[in-house]
């Protein structure tokens, strides 16, 4: 049954803008964006357990690509360029870092996001002489919503396919034990690179698609590290190694953050911090795994 549910649900989501107010549509764009980011993040990190904080490095790069090219190229080509740049960047980063394991990888990816932001700032100040850029595209909010919805559906579909394919099995083995993976004939570098590049390309595209909403961009806006942390915590909350886990984490957390940032703009970061701690303590393996083990325990008690 669950296999046939996504299609009508997607159609319903696609029809949603017909009834929504501008505010509602903006909310939906944000939500679908985070579902896409969390799902794309989990595509690589969920099974391999390589925790990447580089989400915003790619997301921001996507947005910045649009900011630079939006007046020079037609929109589809701009998107294509963003995807290409994201993929190329992921390949370079992946080749140089996927040998790092554990906390070293986490720190590197965090550093990467900062590095990209500082490089662009330096370039804009010293070479082009301006810091901010404007994005003038005749893409409507509805258009952004539909594109992001399509990208999100594509991400979850791709993840489902990978789960059933050898690549998914290889990623799970890598997450459990890389030595065993290598000794079983799995090419570690290639497997990780494929998944990392797919994930990063999707994240870059998400940044490119979302960028017209900003109108004005500068590095400190589009390379906000909170995006990376939110993505991680959303995927972890739902369960990063489950197909629907990231979605399940992203929807409630996004709504919660939205409510907090509107109603408590000054104390919002405190709630954010508390929530991070709470999720890690309460659901170390994600809500889906938690529910499953609870059901398992209940069944055993009954038996």
């Amino acid at each position, binding site marked *: 049954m669950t296999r046939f549910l996504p299609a009508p649900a997607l159609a319903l989501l696609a029809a949603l803008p017909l009834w929504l107010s501008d505010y509602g549509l903006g909310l939906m764009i944000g939500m679908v964006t985070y579902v896409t980011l969390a799902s794309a993040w989990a595509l690589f990190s969920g099974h391999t357990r390589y925790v990447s904080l580089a989400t915003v490095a790619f997301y921001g790069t996507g947005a910045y690509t649009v900011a630079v090219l939006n007046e020079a190229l037609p929109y589809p080509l701009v998107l294509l360029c963003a995807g290409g740049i994201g993929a190329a960047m992921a390949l370079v980063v992946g080749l140089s870092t996927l040998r790092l394991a554990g906390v070293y990888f986490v720190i590197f990816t965090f550093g990467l996001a900062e590095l990209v932001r500082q490089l662009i700032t330096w370039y804009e100040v010293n070479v082009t002489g301006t810091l901010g850029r404007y994005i003038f595209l005749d893409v409507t909010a509805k258009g952004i919503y539909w594109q992001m919805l399509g990208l999100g559906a594509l991400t979850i579909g791709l993840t489902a396919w990978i789960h059933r394919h050898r690549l998914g099995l290889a990623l799970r083995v890598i997450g459990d034990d890389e*030595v065993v993976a*290598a*000794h079983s004939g799995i090419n570690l570098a290639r497997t990780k690179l494929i998944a990392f590049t797919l994930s990063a390309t999707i994240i870059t595209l998400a940044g490119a698609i979302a960028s017209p909403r900003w109108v004005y961009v500068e590095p400190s806006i589009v390379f906000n590290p909170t995006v990376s942390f939110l993505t991680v915590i959303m995927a972890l909350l739902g369960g990063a190694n489950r197909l629907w886990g990231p979605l399940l984490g992203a929807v409630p957390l996004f709504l919660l953050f939205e409510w907090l940032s509107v109603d408590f703009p000054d104390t919002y970061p405190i709630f954010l911090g508390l929530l991070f701690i709470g999720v890690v303590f309460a659901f170390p393996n994600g809500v889906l795994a938690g529910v499953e083990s609870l059901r398992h325990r209940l069944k055993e008690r009954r038996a």
Partner: protein
Amino acid sequence: MSFLSIENATKSFGGLKAVNDVSFTVEQGEIVGLLGPNGSGKTTLLNLVSGALPATSGRIALEGHALTGKRPDLIARAGVARTFQLVRILPSLTLEENVMIPAVFGTVAHWGAAAEAVAREALETVGLTDAGRRAGDLTYIDQKRLELARALAAEPRLLLLDEWLAGLNPTELAEGIALIRSLRETGITIVMVEHILEAVRALCPRCVVMNSGTLIADGATEKVLSDPHVIAAYLGEVEDA
């Protein structure tokens, strides 16, 4: 040409030569015991063969094709499988998935029903049932069984066992010996690091002995075990003997 040839294999860690200029060959279908006191370099030598560590110098070849310098996944695909001294299972995967991995990514690259069939057969060989269980829930002996099943599912031509029989109780040990003996009938070649002499005598017609990284004896098991150099290596040199 020998099936497995190890020529002047050397591995240095800084100033320490863990494996120092070791050479011997193994013929197809042989079961060779690799003996030596703790720290003599046996596991390091297995690591050089399986590609877990790169050799500092020397050449290791399987049927004339060099293994040295290759990545472990390529060596696995060439038909070499191993178990680890400290058991390495994949705790979040089921038994069947654990065992399926080398069948999927190994020499033959099975997928779907074919991979599952290979996995079930290997599980049956080592006597494990209930293939849907999570590997993390297994007892120690069953984890060892699982690791062997995984190695067998690779359908290897050369199997490296690193103290696979260590830590078993007498009943389990007898079962383990019978299991390895049954493998011999399949024509597989085995190099096994082992401390339990009972098992070595029962399984290995030939032994190779290492001490402090060098090869000190190579020959028929009974002869090697009574060699004064070997006894001295295990018990320490007797002064003025």
